């Protein structure tokens, strides 16, 4: 139930979000307005063909239906919002409407987190973890300033994870299928779901009395029954989503919209992952080539002007070998091995049934984290916003974390949320992003406690504390210094942000693997 405290807390968040209305919004604002217009004015058969605006519909059908539902309200609010030719429409009423839809749809996350608190026994630490996630700078920056509907989507994801925590595996799987039909970026974590549901839900084991501990047989009949149930549920969800388009023979068109393989390895601003470090190493080698002629011979001149100049195109490197998409795919798969290892170790753990279920779902969430992490570290054209995909499930684990998990969370959340700063590049938003992040980091460092009762700040090692504090000079150097201070090296501020945060992100990736797997 909602208490007075929850409501006060929700309203303070709502207040800040309301005040943020006139702040900067990105092209995603117009993207979503255009989708409102497409779904409102066109028949289903034309949704994925419409291309009058450059912002074509490229989310799966459930999201299109979500936009359609919103467009009904939009029509009543201000009919000009849903006019197809009204490109770039962003008057006060349109901004108010769209910002409001984000805030209202975010209540899904709020209620999901409420359910999460219940599922964790209503402990104080789970409430703190939930509150920190709901008011996290991630959603504040990406949803309420930049403009997207992540609060809504991650709400569905949290629901799915909480269902797994409660032991409703079938429901968890079905919810995840629904989520995939809202936004396909969640495919990053699909492998963890697949293995968890296959091993933890579908496979039913029979134990015989005189069998040695740890040996048991597969109950084929019961397993097949569960597999059929799960399969049927997933098929129904996908049939509802994609069926109409299959009947219209539009699936190839949908596929080409949902998976545009034309983009480069790195975004204009490198998301802080392995490839950011790789690209930076390349830059360093170019500098080094002035002094070491051996490197100079290897320079590929086309790479010199490429990756940092800021176009979403093919990325080519000057010294290091170029990376084909297949290589990132293989690297991602290899990096996902720890995620599977977590689940396999988890299925063989012993203990009472209830405890087993709890620890099983904990391991599942850990595996989701590692799975998302692998895609983030090595994926093709990763967006910095994808950090939310790691931080959201990891945030659920901070309700009762081990010291190691808490340390990694502190490092990763600081670096990861800081890496969103270039999204809000205007000087108008400068104080906002700094204040929001600082408040959040202060609160999380002081209020999150390890299972032994130590606060996150006290858990951190000295080097990790230095790293967290190092974001302050980084902020001063990259955001407060005038751009002329960097002379010809205009790419340097962004590159510094990527590399510095990539160090923290990589460090806590290794730390989490150590924590979860070993």
């Amino acid at each position: 139930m909602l208490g007075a405290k929850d409501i006060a807390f929700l309203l303070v968040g709502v207040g800040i979000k309301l005040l943020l209305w006139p702040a900067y919004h990105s092209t995603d604002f117009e993207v979503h307005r255009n989708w409102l217009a497409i779904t409102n004015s066109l028949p289903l058969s034309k949704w994925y063909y419409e291309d009058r605006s450059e912002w074509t519909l490229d989310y799966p059908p459930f999201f299109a239906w979500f936009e359609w539902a919103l467009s009904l309200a939009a029509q009543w609010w201000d009919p000009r919002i849903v006019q197809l030719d009204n490109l770039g429409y962003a008057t006060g009423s349109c901004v108010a409407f769209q910002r409001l839809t984000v805030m209202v749809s975010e209540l899904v996350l709020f209620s999901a987190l409420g359910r999460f608190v219940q599922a964790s026994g209503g402990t104080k630490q789970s409430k703190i973890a939930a509150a920190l996630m709901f008011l996290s700078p991630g959603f504040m920056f990406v949803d309420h300033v930049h403009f997207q509907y992540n609060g809504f989507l991650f709400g569905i994801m949290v629901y799915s994870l909480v269902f797994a925590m409660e032991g409703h595996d079938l429901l968890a799987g079905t919810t995840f299928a629904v989520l995939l039909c809202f936004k396909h970026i969640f495919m990053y974590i699909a492998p963890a779901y697949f293995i968890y549901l296959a091993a933890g839900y579908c496979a039913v084991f029979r134990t015989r009395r005189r069998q040695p501990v740890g040996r048991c047989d597969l109950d084929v009949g019961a397993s097949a029954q569960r597999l059929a149930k799960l399969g049927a549920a997933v098929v129904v969800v996908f049939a509802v989503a994609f069926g109409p388009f299959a009947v219209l023979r539009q699936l190839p068109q949908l596929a080409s919209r949902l998976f545009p393989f034309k983009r480069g390895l790195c975004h204009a601003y490198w998301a802080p992952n392995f490839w950011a470090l790789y690209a930076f190493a390349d830059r360093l080698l170019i500098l080094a080539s002035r002094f070491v002629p051996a490197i100079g011979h290897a320079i590929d001149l086309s790479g010199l002007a490429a990756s940092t100049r800021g176009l979403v195109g093919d990325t080519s490197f000057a010294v290091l070998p170029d990376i084909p998409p297949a290589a990132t795919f293989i690297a991602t798969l290899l990096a996902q091995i720890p995620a599977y290892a977590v689940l396999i170790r988890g299925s063989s753990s012993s203990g009472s049934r209830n405890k087993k279920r709890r620890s099983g779902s904990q391991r599942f969430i850990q595996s989701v984290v590692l799975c998302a992490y692998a895609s983030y570290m090595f994926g093709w054209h990763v967006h910095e916003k994808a950090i939310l995909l790691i931080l959201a499930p990891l945030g659920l684990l901070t309700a009762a974390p081990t010291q190691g998990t808490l340390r990694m969370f502190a490092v990763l959340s600081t670096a990861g949320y800081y890496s969103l700063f270039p999204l809000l590049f205007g000087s108008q938003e400068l104080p906002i992003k700094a204040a929001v992040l600082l408040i959040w980091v202060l609160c999380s460092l002081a209020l999150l406690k390890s299972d032994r009762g130590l606060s996150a700040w006290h858990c951190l090692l000295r080097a990790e504390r230095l790293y967290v504090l190092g974001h302050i000079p980084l902020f001063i150097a990259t955001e407060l210094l005038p751009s002329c201070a960097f002379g010809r090296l205009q790419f340097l501020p962004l590159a510094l942000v990527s590399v510095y945060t990539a160090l923290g992100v990589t460090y806590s990736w290794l730390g989490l693997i150590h924590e979860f797997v070993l």
Partner: protein
Amino acid sequence: MAPSSPQPQARQAASASRRAGVIPVERWFWFLAEENAQGIALPVTLLFALLVRWCVALHGYSGQGSPPLYGDYEAQRHWMELTWYFYDLSYWGLDYPPLTAFQSWACGWVAHLINPSWVALDRSRGIETHTSKLFMRSTVLVLEALIYVPAVVLLFQSRQIQANWIVKQAAIFSVLLQPCLILIDHGHFQYNAVMLGFLVWTVYFAAREQYLVMAACFCCSLMFKQMALYFAPAVFAFLLAKCFRSPYGVRLFVQLGLVVIVTFGVMLLPWMGSSAQLQQILFRVFPVARGLYEDKVANVWCAVNVAVKLRSMFAAPVLLRLAAAATSVAFAPSCIHLFLAVKRAASGQALVAADAVKLLCYALVNCSLAFFLFSFQVHEKSILLPLAPALLLIHEEPWAVNWFVQVALFSMYPLLFKDGLQIPYWVMAVGWSMLRSCPACPADKRTPLAVLNAQWVSTLVMVAIHVANMYVPPPPSLPDLYVVLNVVFSCTMFVLFFAYFNYRQLTLSLVRVRTTRSKKKDN
């Protein structure tokens, strides 16, 4: 075993009952204390105050996009562009005292460094580019952070404010997030926080018993905006009473006089050369020619005007004298009381510094409210002046100050509406009522029930006027109906607050003085 079990329960019950009387802001600091996280309390408060200010600053300002005269925003920018007293006076001639002129000049100098087009003389009139707005907004923020914020934090952390950690932290939070000042300075656009900051420094140095610095701070406040005169009788009474102490009273008097003369002299130095210049400053700063009141303002003259048309009955000079007399009568009781109490304490018995500060704050509220209600040429924004010392009493008068802020905010609604600040207005109004207020938590045992009910009624009246304003168009014969209703209601409430704070000063503080004296006698 048996006796040990009820004990934790009793402790729990005790802590629960202690918490029942806690308003939501205090609950946050309770929580931090329980979590052993007191260290982040002040940084988070300051950062949150910054965040809210900057978010409000994203919204509209006075006279945005409305040529040819624009509003206060353009006035302040224009002063940065010219900064002195003789220049095309019909276009926002500078009408504040020299310290404002210095501040405009300094800001103009910085602006010129960054982008000369923002402050180019004449050519920049009505400039409303995105970056120039950002610059202007950040000057307000920086000045407030330099002057107002440290004064508030230091004052509440000093030993002279007697309250526990939670109450003090909640008081700092509330004073810094007080809606009226934020909406006027960062929304409407003015630099009131500088003047009020100097006032808080005045109180702070009174608490530290450093009267010379105190006098200098008050002179700065006066030289920033002549409106600080609203406080002058109280400050004067306080310092004069201090001069009656033996044996160094006369020396203090001379020193104070010197400090005042030197402070004023330094600030007026650039104009000392010609009497014409000085006259011009005086004329610009005190525009007695402007009439009894300008727009609709919730003071007595404007409210009485609904029934009795004073302005058509009397000539302006008569009204001026009438207003002066009424104001003097209104502020006399509290100032005389302050003078006598401090003087009695100064001669012989020591008045505890904490009590002296409390007394001074009450007198400042009463004195400035007297000016607001009865003086000549009052602006609706001037309610910020009584609010500032009242907020310094927020730990003493939790419900009265909270209520006062609500009504003051309501009284400024017509102004904020003109500036397109409805969203920040509603957010701040609801936020303040929710975080500070008793109606939100009926379990608050510190508030008498009758007060709670009265506050409910007042909130309902305000909401009703708002709702009617939104949905019922006023009759054509009374186009200003809702503004007048606002004025009459707010004025009535302000008169009640005036009476209440006077009553509190005259009763409560006297008791305090007597107890300290009796303690002395016991010794």
